[in-house]
């Protein structure tokens, strides 16, 4: 490449020198490090490498959502996003350890398989549509009310008082919080729904 006519500026030279400065070969020569297998060959990035959760602040204390062992988890949050989930050394149950599922919970909660919208499939539909949350809640409330009205029984066929509906049923609870199960059971019982079940049965 012809450089004639373009006199190297002082700035240019100094950046060149700067470049050369960071040329590990020169460092190698200067330190008479024959093989350059250590620090000589390290880059700035390498020297500054730190755990990415270093600046994440205090971890959020959580519990693994998979199985009933109940291992402690520490959730590191940075910029409002999850940077890392790992075992909680303080837990006398798990002592910081996690199994593959627990270790994968970062992917469980941050994965793009998470669905963000309420989806609706009308009778006979062949695809999902999206519904606004409030509207969907209203629709569900309407359906609960109507089905309850339609299937309410004050008495069983044999005349015993039952005050309930068998037209509504619920399944699920083992993945939910105690508080959630509590409200569910409370609401369903008040609604007269008895067919409330969860994984404990299967």
């Amino acid at each position, binding site marked *: 490449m012809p450089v004639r006519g373009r006199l190297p500026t002082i700035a240019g030279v100094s950046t060149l020198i700067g470049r050369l400065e960071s040329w590990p070969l020169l460092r190698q020569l200067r330190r008479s490090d024959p093989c*350059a297998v*250590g620090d000589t060959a390290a880059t700035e990035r390498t020297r500054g490498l730190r755990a990415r959760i270093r600046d994440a602040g205090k971890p959020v204390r959580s519990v693994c959502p998979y199985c009933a062992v109940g291992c402690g988890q520490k959730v590191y949050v940075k910029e409002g996003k999850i940077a890392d989930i790992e075992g909680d050394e303080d837990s006398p149950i798990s002592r910081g350890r996690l199994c593959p599922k627990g270790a994968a919970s970062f992917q469980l909660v941050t*994965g793009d398989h998470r669905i963000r919208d309420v989806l609706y499939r009308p009778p006979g539909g062949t695809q999902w549509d999206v*519904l606004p949350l409030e509207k969907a809640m209203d629709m569900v409330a309407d359906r609960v009310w109507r089905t309850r009205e339609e299937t309410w029984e004050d008495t069983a066929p044999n005349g015993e008082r039952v005050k309930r509906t068998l037209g509504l049923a619920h399944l699920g609870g083992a993945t939910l919080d105690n508080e959630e199960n509590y409200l569910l059971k409370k609401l369903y019982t008040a609604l007269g729904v008895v067919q409330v079940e969860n994984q404990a049965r299967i």
Partner: protein
Amino acid sequence: MTAPPNPVPFPGPAELERPTDGREVDPSLGLLQGEGAAQRVRTPEPHPGHLAPTHVEADARTPTYYGLPVLQQPVWIRTIPVYLFVGGMAGAASSLGAASLVAGGPTLERLENRCRALGLAGDLAGSLLLIADLGRPERFLNMLRVFRPTSPMSMGSWILALSGAANTAGFLFGSRRGPLGALGRVGIAAGGGLGALLAGYTGVLLANTAIPLWQAARRELPVLSVGSGMASAGAVLELFSDSGASRKVTHWYGSVGKVVAIGAMLVMQRSAPRAPRVTEPLRTGATGLLWRAGLVLTAAGLVASGLGNKSRARERLAAGLTLAGALATRLAVFHAGKRSARDPRATFEGQRAGMGAAELRRPPDPKPAVFKLPVMR
């Protein structure tokens, strides 16, 4: 009551099920910042061929792990054997060029010029072939970041770079007068020395690996490299020789090369008598065929160029055979090495037969002074 369908279609699971990078972090929920986060991933992931259901009957005496390779296969692509071929030829040509300059006198001037050209062309082509093989070709200059004598690749890069520089100087200025000419001639001479190393180091490059076949052939491979380089340089130069003298020189040079190469190959075949498994790729299968082809072609080239008066056609035939032989040999060595890497028994049986650390006369210094551990702050 039915809800009016919202026009926003939900990205169906079919879409979600399509793999992209095997992490699939939703950027609004999580941060992708780990050490491996920068790994680029193409989709879909190709199937690693060796992971097929296998049912290995446990052989108590010589176990393997489902027959899976113990070593990684060389990730090098085909440019590498071609590079070995080209580099060998260039190195040999440069050497001959330097010798011609130093000792050949005016009769060999044209030869010397051709050697220069071939040497330089080989250096350039070799560099391109090498760069083409890099996973990150844009970072080829990193090869000159450090000087690592433990690494034949590092040494080779420096040799190639310096040889390229020397040969360039030689090519540009070698025929001039004055200080530039002197520089050119120094370049030629240096190029000659470096060329010899260039031709030889490629053997070390292969030998200095964990691949059982290559490691077992660590003495023969450099010799084979040099021989084969001389043979091919000789063949090419002989084709373009204009004078009887230069023809004689190149013929001599090429023939010695061929003899050396054949000799090295014959020795190499027997390099692992205690563990035949190690050299098996040279005997069986496609690599065995290629290897024998290399041997036969080289021998044929020797015979064709060596017998009586030569017609131009026969000369061409001989050169062709020789070049084909050299290329076949390089390809054979390369692919046989790959096969050897794939075969866990080559490693296991070789090492059990004493071809691992056991054959070192002196075990390597666990912390050799030369690798003194620099302290990082």
